[in-house]
């Protein structure tokens, strides 16, 4: 008899890494206790980008939906928050779940339209939709038209003192970001993840085995849109001011996010984390260079595509066969 084998998901190394990751996570959650006000703001921004990157990675890396129009949902979230606060008198933080629902609801007809475009044309189609959102926002006089508007000071005062406010916003960002990554992780370990893997490996074969490709892709698109809208809401709570160009900025909310995922490693959960840290590190040192910094980012993305299409985390996996978030299966001898 041949030796019996078992099928496992995690390895000892990944379990240890997982425990270390949990410890780091607890440290980050406690940031309001140890970080200065400026550092707290920086970490909040890092969390925003990490959440956006994880959502884009879910779309492009796992579902093959290469969208270059996710800034549509970031801006939508921002404008929904302003509308909830100004017209309904809501607490800005309570507008986040509202935005999540509205983003999901609006993404269904958008998907119905852009899913008609295949492959690379899908990408530009999503961009057109984002342009329509931006131009529409600029036409709405009630939210400031082309010049935008600010949150009244009194609304922010209701959230407490400056310290309380920053802590509250930070913790919300933390929950959103961890929630976004957990969503990707749990989704990939579920039946949806199995279906996505099958679609990625062979679309026609998976379809003939009964995977409902259209529905799975729609589900992922709507989920990513909903979370992205919620992140957008929180981003503009921290910015206090909104205008169509800032809310629907392709550079800020799509280009940088794509570069983060591609450089870190597309199609892995760890990739966006690594990419985000690297992006902020580069930004701290090179942002003063302005245009040259952006050229460096663009060149870096091109080099990664030529030399290591799976990104920096892909190199780690290839070299050490290691993952912090085990979503696949391994065969082990007993």
């Amino acid at each position: 008899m041949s030796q019996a084998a078992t099928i496992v998901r995690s390895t000892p190394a990944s379990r240890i890494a997982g425990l270390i990751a949990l410890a780091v996570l607890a440290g980050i959650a406690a940031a309001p206790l140890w970080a200065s006000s400026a550092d707290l703001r920086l970490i909040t921004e890092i969390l925003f980008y990490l959440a956006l990157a994880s959502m884009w990675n879910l779309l492009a890396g796992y579902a093959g939906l290469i969208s270059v129009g996710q800034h549509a949902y970031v801006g939508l979230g921002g404008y929904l928050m302003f509308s909830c606060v100004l017209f309904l008198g809501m607490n800005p933080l309570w507008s986040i779940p509202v935005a999540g629902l509205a983003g999901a609801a609006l993404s269904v007809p958008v998907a119905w339209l852009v899913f008609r475009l295949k492959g690379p044309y899908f990408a530009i189609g999503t961009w057109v939709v984002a342009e329509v959102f931006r131009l529409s926002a600029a036409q709405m006089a009630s939210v400031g038209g082309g010049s935008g508007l600010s949150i009244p000071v009194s609304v922010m005062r209701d959230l407490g003192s400056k310290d309380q406010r920053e802590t509250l916003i930070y913790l919300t960002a933390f929950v959103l970001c961890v929630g976004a990554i957990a969503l990707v992780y749990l989704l990939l370990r579920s039946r949806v993840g199995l279906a996505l893997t099958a679609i990625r490996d062979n679309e026609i074969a998976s379809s003939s085995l009964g995977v409902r490709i259209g529905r799975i892709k729609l589900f992922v698109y709507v989920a990513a849109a909903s979370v992205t809208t919620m992140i957008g809401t929180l981003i503009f709570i921290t910015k206090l001011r909104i205008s169509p160009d800032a809310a629907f900025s392709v550079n800020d909310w799509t280009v940088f996010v794509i570069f983060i995922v591609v450089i870190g490693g597309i199609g892995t959960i760890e990739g966006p984390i690594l990419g985000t840290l690297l992006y902020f590190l580069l930004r701290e040192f090179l942002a003063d260079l302005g245009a040259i910094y952006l050229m460096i980012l663009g060149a870096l993305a091109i080099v990664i595509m030529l030399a290591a299409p799976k990104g920096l985390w892909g190199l780690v996996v290839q070299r050490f066969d290691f993952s912090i978030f085990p979503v696949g299966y391994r065969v082990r001898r007993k």
Partner: protein
Amino acid sequence: MEWINVIVQGVLIGGLYALFAAGLSLIFGVMRLVNIAHGDFIVGAAYLAMVVIQATGLHPLASLFLVVPAMAAIGYAIQLGLLNRVLGNDILPPLIVTFGLSIILQNLLLTGFSADSRKLNAGALETQSLAVLPGVDVGYLPLLTFVAAVALIAGLQYLFYHTAMGRAFRATSDDGEIAQIMGLDNRRVFAWAMSLSMSVVAIAGVFLAIRANFDPFMGPSRLIFGFEAVIIGGLGNLWGTLAGGVILGVAQGLGAQIDPGWQLLAGHIAFLVILAVKPRGLFPRID
């Protein structure tokens, strides 16, 4: 009469959009590549023409004799040196690489020429017009742009269906592997297709630069106009692309007539409506 004028001007602008679209459509047809930097190359060609004109004092249209070969050479080099390496079954790498090129080009132009908007001066060509109907005047420049678009598309159509190079393009597009067995070098064929696309880009860039102001960041919206014209007209149909450009131009004109803020929005909405009712475009190629 006012509305007829709006429609006539929209049709003529459609010629410019068809010029934006033709290069995009060509490389997609041959190698299934969507060049995200297409609009930025159009703007780059406009700056190149500006530099040529400043150095030589040529008329903008005469500068095409230098700008077209230069852009064609750049296209050939980029295809051989960069894009051929990332073409494959996965559509992500070429998309990201051209996205990276787009960001690099925008910031290169910003560094070299500042964010000020520029314009090429074509002298009398810009101001003279032809009165076709009372209240409807057709400018020489828009007319020339439209005629150039029609001539270019006719030329591309001829090249595709009546020349050896066109046969190579169609063969590679239909089945790259078989084409290679038959002795075609796909990498060279792709490079020729890209240099042809970039020649069209050069023409589009110069006409754009004579018609209106340009700055380093207007590339992406030119890409979007071109893309919309391609999808409205139907993939793979060059005359359809011209029709798509015309529909986009007329929609924008009508939108602007209602409210200046609606110009771009009306064009995008026309595109989305056509996508909703005729997903394969108005004139899909029969396969």
